[in-house]
């Protein structure tokens, strides 16, 4: 897909995500809106994937380490053909395989179970290392939240990725500047990320993570070292009253807010 089509797809995913969270009465809408452009670029442009063969050995791997934004992943996977689109209406419903955090044994296209933060990057390092050992040419991508980078396990993995020379690994940090309870800056401010990652031997690209052309270029890039894309995003991107408001980490819109948000997202379609 070209940039305009990707942007259109991202808006459709945002609309569906808003609807799913509204109908389920729960979800993590702020961090989903910030990450959807990245998910869209990955699944509709960058990843070499086979929706009818989700375990194809040569597939590129993507790990959503910020597993609490599973709804956005489910919708993206559904739009890409990994699961039926009408199944999204079961999100968080009793017995649904679409619970609040992705399950790789139930949902096609999910690579590993995430939810507790700081798990996805170490697993992605293992995936990328496996390709080095076997000679496979697949690439591995992983997306973390910026608050999630406070987890020490990530820095263990960052060290290992550099030591192993994993030029087939791309980490995208969804840098929306807010975590569950407060701004990153008011909690444990690990920004700026670039010098820290560079000091650990990574190549770092900083982009506007809600600008599709920049997202695509950064994700398609492959250098000689593990690559970190620091994606500057807006929590709640696309919905004016949610944007950059910490309380929209996992707040659910009421009927009136839902209508306003839907109108804003539809206007852009």
């Amino acid at each position, binding site marked *: 897909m070209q940039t305009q089509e990707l942007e259109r797809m991202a808006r459709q995913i945002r609309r569906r995500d808003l609807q799913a969270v509204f109908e389920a009465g729960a979800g993590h809408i702020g961090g989903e809106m910030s990450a959807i452009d990245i998910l869209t670029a990955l699944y509709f442009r960058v990843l070499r994937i086979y929706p009818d063969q989700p375990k194809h050995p040569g597939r590129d791997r993507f790990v959503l380490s910020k597993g609490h934004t599973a709804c956005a992943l489910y919708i993206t996977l559904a739009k890409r053909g990994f699961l039926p689109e009408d199944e999204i209406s079961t999100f968080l419903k009793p017995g649904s395989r679409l619970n609040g955090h992705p399950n790789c044994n139930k949902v096609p296209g999910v690579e590993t179970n995430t939810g*507790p933060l700081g798990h996805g990057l170490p697993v992605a390092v*293992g995936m990328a290392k496996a390709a080095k050992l076997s000679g496979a040419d697949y690439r591995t991508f992983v997306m973390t939240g910026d608050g999630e980078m406070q987890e020490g396990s990530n820095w263990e993995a960052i060290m290992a990725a550099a030591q192993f020379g994993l030029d087939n690994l791309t980490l995208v940090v969804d840098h929306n500047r807010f975590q569950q309870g407060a701004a990153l800056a008011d909690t444990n401010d690990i920004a700026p990320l670039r010098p820290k990652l560079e000091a650990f031997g990574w190549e770092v690209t900083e982009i506007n993570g809600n600008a599709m052309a920049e997202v695509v270029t950064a994700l398609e890039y492959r250098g000689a070292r593990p690559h970190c894309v620091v994606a500057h995003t807006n929590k709640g991107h696309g919905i004016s009253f949610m944007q950059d408001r910490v309380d929209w980490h996992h707040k659910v819109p009421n009927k009136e807010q839902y209508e306003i948000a839907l109108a804003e997202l539809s206007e852009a379609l």
Partner: protein
Amino acid sequence: MNALTQTGAPAEKLHDCRDAFAETLERLAAGNDTIVAVCNDSVGSSKLGGFKSKFPERLVNVGIAEQNMIGVGAGLANGGRLPFVCAAACFLTGRALEQIKADISYSNANVKLIGISSGMAYGELGPTHHSIEDFAWTRVLPNLPVIAPCDRIETAAAVEWAASYDGPCFLRLSRVGVPDLLPEGHVFVPGRANLLRDGKDVTLIANGTLTHRILKAAALLAERGVEARVLNMATVRPIDEEAIISAARETGAILTAEEHSIFGGLGSAVAEVVVDHQPVPMKRLGVPGVYAHTGSAEMLLDEYGMAPLAIAEAALALVKRK
């Protein structure tokens, strides 16, 4: 009643089960190039030196970083490798328990977790290095067989089984020497106990470093006319319910012994089955919910009532409760 006495058995040849693990892994790796060993700067303590020299590119040493080590193991399995993740049991399980839960057990990743120097094998290094909680921590996790072999033969057989099994497991090994107990050529079957001696008066159940001790206790009991059934129960989960229920029904009393806390380990697992199916008097021997003081594993096991003579005495007291 006469006091029990130690029998004057000839000195036994003792084996470090890590050697059997390393030899088996190297042999399997020679025929299967997907096998990788993952460790946390623990090449020496995991006895991976031979593996490293034979398959240097297949040794993935993540450094001192256990959370990453487990995640890397899961990722390697996702990428089609067969990882054996080896580390001191205390750090493997305690430091990285949430990774074992989410990345291995819940994700059902085909990763073999090898806990080295479990129990109180690190003796004098103290309770930070003891791993007497690992049965409790791991046996509550679905999809994760928990196995503590009793000798070098069962260790080798369990490693062979693990390599052929499509799913995760936790093998709990010691470095404390143990004699050969099972016959050469023994085939490991998960969830199945081994009858090492039959009897009708009481059943003694153990695994790992305690199996040879309960066998010796059974010999002492025989001197007193008490016939003990002896079960080696390497698999703590899935536990051999059938063997436990039969033991309860046919011998009327069960004693367990383990190099683990008395809370949550083999004894607890056996007691759960007994309570649900066939209540009989039980005695659970283990580390009695304390941090051990300075001493070797063998010395501490003796102090906590797990010398063969003390086990036999505990069994005699148990038989009286029938």
